[in-house]
């Protein structure tokens, strides 16, 4: 290349960005921990500005809100389990780079199916049979809700982010519709506790530990999902399709089949989460049953890099923040949406820090005199 010697110097940018070849795992974790610390400090500043309280006291209130009493710890564990369940469900889809933002709708579809069984067959079927019917119905409902967008994506390449997103609202309105149909008293739009006296279709309570069954089921699912993604042939296919659909086609993987199969699994687990929420936790159904977990799970899964065991940690972090910030808002008489602000800030920091794990910034060298 010919350089015209005009005496003008070529301006070199102040810094440029280089992809890291490989980063030692502990360095990556130090960066992540630093990011969380930075986020907590930042949240402390925000809380201080809003409440004018000593930031340390704010943190102790948060901690107390999440772990303060046995009841709170138990409620925390139950919430972590439910968020983890939805996260485990969406993980295989994301690993395949299929943007299933329809977790919310799939959970609701599953929950609606099990609520319908509880209401319709609550008096007629023996409880063991009823539970099996509910299980099948909710898993089917979740899977159907997930496979519809998958079919269109696999066959016509329809944008799955937008499709699954819209499916959420159809599910929400469907639940609203049935909530009015089944409402007690009529017209209130509230279903109320289903089978309050007979407890038909309620998940059995192990010992006197309510929710324990939920937690066990979710933990088993987490282990299975880890093994499935890491050691099974299907898990490998998911990873290949996620990395590059062209490679997958080249080595003879049927991309359509993998997409459909993975989305059925994803939706089925979401449906199961709906069952756990309706039959194992709330014993009712409403628009709020999924409580945004379908969306939060996406962030949980992403932060954990699709590893189900890390998801335990990330969902614990999110639920801790929610509980803690809710406690702050009660203690300082603020609106409870404070927790959403704190959660948002922490997620910004965590997804932001991934940059420093994958890339390094090289500054312009000092010019020689």
């Amino acid at each position, binding site marked *: 290349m010919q350089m015209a010697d005009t005496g003008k110097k070529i301006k070199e940018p102040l810094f440029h*960005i*280089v*992809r890291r070849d490989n980063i030692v795992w502990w360095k990556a974790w130090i960066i992540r921990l630093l990011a969380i610390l930075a986020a907590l400090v930042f949240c402390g500043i925000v809380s201080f500005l*809003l409440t004018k309280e000593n930031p340390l006291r704010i943190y102790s209130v948060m901690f107390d809100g999440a772990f303060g009493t046995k009841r709170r710890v138990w409620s925390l564990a139950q919430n972590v389990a439910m968020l983890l369940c939805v996260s485990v469900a969406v993980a295989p889809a994301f690993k395949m780079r299929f*943007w299933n*933002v329809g977790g919310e709708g799939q959970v609701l579809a599953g929950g609606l199916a099990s609520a319908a069984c509880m209401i319709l067959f609550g008096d007629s079927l023996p409880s063991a049979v009823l539970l099996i019917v509910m299980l099948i119905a909710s898993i089917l409902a979740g899977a159907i809700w997930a496979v519809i967008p998958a079919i*269109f994506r696999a066959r*016509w*390449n*329809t*944008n799955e*982010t*937008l*499709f699954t*997103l*819209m*499916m959420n*609202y*159809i599910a929400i*309105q*469907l639940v*609203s*519709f*049935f*909530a*009015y*149909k089944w409402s007690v008293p009529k*017209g209130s*739009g509230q279903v109320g506790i289903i089978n309050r006296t007979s407890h038909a279709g309620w998940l059995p309570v192990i010992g006197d530990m309510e929710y324990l069954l939920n937690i066990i089921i979710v933990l088993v699912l987490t282990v299975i999902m880890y093994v499935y993604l890491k050691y099974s042939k299907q898990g490998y296919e998911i990873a290949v399709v996620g990395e590059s659909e062209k490679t997958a086609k080249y080595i003879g993987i049927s991309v359509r089949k993998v997409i459909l199969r993975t989305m059925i699994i994803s939706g089925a687990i979401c449906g199961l989460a709906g069952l756990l929420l309706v039959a194992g936790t709330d014993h009712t159904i409403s628009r709020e049953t999924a409580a*945004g977990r379908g*969306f*939060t799970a*996406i*962030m949980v899964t*992403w932060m954990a890099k699709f590893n189900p065991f890390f998801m335990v940690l990330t969902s614990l972090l999110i639920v801790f923040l929610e509980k803690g910030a809710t406690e702050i808002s009660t203690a300082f*008489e*603020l*609106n*409870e*949406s*404070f*927790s*959403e*602000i704190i*959660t*948002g*800030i922490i*997620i*910004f920091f965590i*997804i*932001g820090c*991934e*940059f420093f794990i*994958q*890339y390094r910034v090289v500054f312009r060298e000092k010019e020689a005199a």
Partner: protein
Amino acid sequence: MWAEFIRRAIMQGIPLLFGSTGEIITEKSGNLNLGIPGIMYVGGIGGVIGAFLYEQNTTELNPFLAVFIPLLCSILCSLIMGLIYCFLTVSLRANQNVTGLAMTTFGVGIGNFFGGSLVKLAGSDVPSINLTATSSYFRTSLPFAEDLGWFGQIFLSHSFLAYLAIITAIVASFVLTKTRTGLNLRAVGENPATADAAGIRVEKYKYLATCIGSIIAGLGGLYYVMDYANGVWSNDGFGDRGWLAIALVIFAIWRPNLSILGSILFGGLYIVHNYIPNLDVSGQELFKMLPYVVTILFLVITSIGKKRNAQPPASLGLPYFREDR
């Protein structure tokens, strides 16, 4: 009754029109900003905070300032949200979907938090946020609209923000299809690597498009609070309109001028259950599904039809790093 229905459909449609125009501009740069619902909340609450503080600190409202201060606050707040999104996805290369969803959590949180706590934080003694005074300035419409019958009711009875929404959509359409800037922007969204090779500054276009898009979407929130809700903020009152705005983008096949008609149609679908005789409450809930069902049908039809000018920008949602090539 028809005129009244169309007028109300337009009023429902205006926030969606702002939101979808903003999102179209954003998506044309290749950024799929799922934070739009959050940004619309922030735009709304920004205006509320501005108006509240102004009303509290002055005895007599100056008509110009009463409109200007909330407008400016709303724009600034939405701009900050747009900058956060850009910084994370463009500069730090974070995943767009995750960032967008986090923005929505964050934005809705901000809206509800300040909506619920502003009175206490500002140390004022009013029971709730009620900005009817400010709202009345926002709602000023042409004085002779009443005299023109149905024509006036449908076309002339709206406030300045509604006309601003339509003008913005037309201007956006013009800029996107008829100017060099629009061509460059579309190139960035279709194929950033080629655009980069042609000397277009990809990051600059992404930043500008997303921030301008955020500001426009935020105005939708402002319109909702100040015009539609008469200046009364209620938590979660804005509802799922943000997602509906994203649905409208698909329906309008990424063309702001089509989304003018689309927004009125969606607004109509949103309220049509009020106009159907003998419909019980549960039936109303089914009717509220309509806009989403229509969007899905449209999404499916356009993807099956594979018409080239009805597709999303080719690199929508994909990150671009020059070093990765």
